[in-house]
């Protein structure tokens, strides 16, 4: 099958790849662009480990063809913070033990980031419902929810201070 030219903006940088139409976005990111933050977990659109942001939507990149993402803006965990300058959410997950093995964490934080864009001041119940497409087999979710609520509070305080 002929390969397609696919143009994406990933974490603010323009990228171009050649991919068969059947190539899934998660494989393009991990294997062609070496962006390995998004993980391959269940491969069946249940676990959310592969969550990335595509044009302002949280999507499971194991269930999107790279061809569908042609022209799209993609944000992965790599686009949120760096080891030297962690995102507020990343810091909150570390401080509140929002991870144990860490496998679900990139998807969890990328999803939480979009959730807080749309609802900057969520209740605990809204956080739980908002991350219901992301599975964690370690934490029991308690500390993940705590981390997201703490990050929301900090982001709101930062916003207020800036105003």
């Amino acid at each position: 099958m002929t390969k397609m030219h696919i143009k994406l903006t990933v974490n603010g940088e323009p990228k171009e790849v050649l991919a068969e139409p059947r190539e899934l976005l998660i494989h393009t990111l991990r294997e062609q662009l070496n962006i390995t933050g998004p993980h391959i977990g269940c491969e069946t659109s249940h676990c959310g480990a592969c969550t990335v942001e595509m044009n302002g939507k949280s999507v499971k990149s194991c269930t999107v063809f790279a061809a569908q993402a042609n022209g799209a803006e993609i944000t992965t965990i790599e686009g949120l913070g760096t080891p030297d300058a962690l995102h507020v959410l990343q810091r909150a997950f570390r401080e509140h033990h929002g991870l144990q093995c860490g496998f679900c964490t990139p998807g969890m934080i990328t999803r939480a980031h979009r959730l807080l864009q749309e609802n900057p001041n969520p209740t605990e119940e809204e956080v739980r419902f908002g991350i219901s497409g992301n599975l964690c087999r370690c934490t029991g979710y308690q500390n993940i929810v705590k981390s997201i609520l703490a990050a929301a509070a900090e982001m709101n305080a930062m916003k207020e201070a800036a105003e």
Partner: protein
Amino acid sequence: MIPAAFEYHRPADVQAAIRVLQDHGDEARVLAGGHSLIPMMKLRMAELGHLVDLQDIAELKGISVEGATVSIGAMTTQQELIAHEELARVAPILREAALQIADPQVRYMGTVGGNVANGDPGNDMPGLMQCLGATYTLVGPGGTREVAARDFYEAAYMTDREDEEILTRITFTAPTGGYAYEKQKRKIGDYATAAAAVLIAAEGGKVTRASIAMTNLSDVPVHSGAAAEALIGTNCDEEATTAAIAAMLDDIEPTEDNRGPVEFKRHVAGVILARAIQRAWSRA
């Protein structure tokens, strides 16, 4: 899990999409949000030569509310539907139902059109659209036609849509009175063990109009006229609710699967319908 190879098309309008379908017959399928089709392709339970992505077709997008007439473009995502304030005001049952579909990520991609056109008995929108008395617009090589949601479903994955037709739009009259969409599922992201859509209009403490449809309890959604009839003229007390449940149970034909045996499903269907009737009545 890599699907079999296919050729990808992204037409800019409905006519161009139909031409691809005409050129390739049943080798081609349209792709809406892809969250039913792509998993099937990954499992190689669906293999097709040509995929026609509808995402660039502007005329398939958007929600319009004009007076009491609601029109929803087929490529409207569940998330867009949930976020639409005017729709939530005139027909809140849609938001209530859509929030119970899949999970957040799937709702950003999954479309209303895909949900109603796929013909999967597990999908929630077909039963809801039957409850609302919605009409589907289908466009094909021969032109445009309209089909009632109540006439559209023939069997699991078999609908009145022809291979070369595209479901473009859903239209219905905004309902008045009380509403409820009640769904029993094993976990977030699961299809219904049983779900019920209920609309009730009342005057002077009595039901004047009702509509009831059930999901995932037959190979097609079940609009139960007899169940609705059992509520007319009553105040939805226990006797009326029991009669409606009995009528509904005569209309469904659940089969055993990993969500439970037939007896259990019939039990859950009754519980869910009772809850939906109570909630709709409390809002009527």
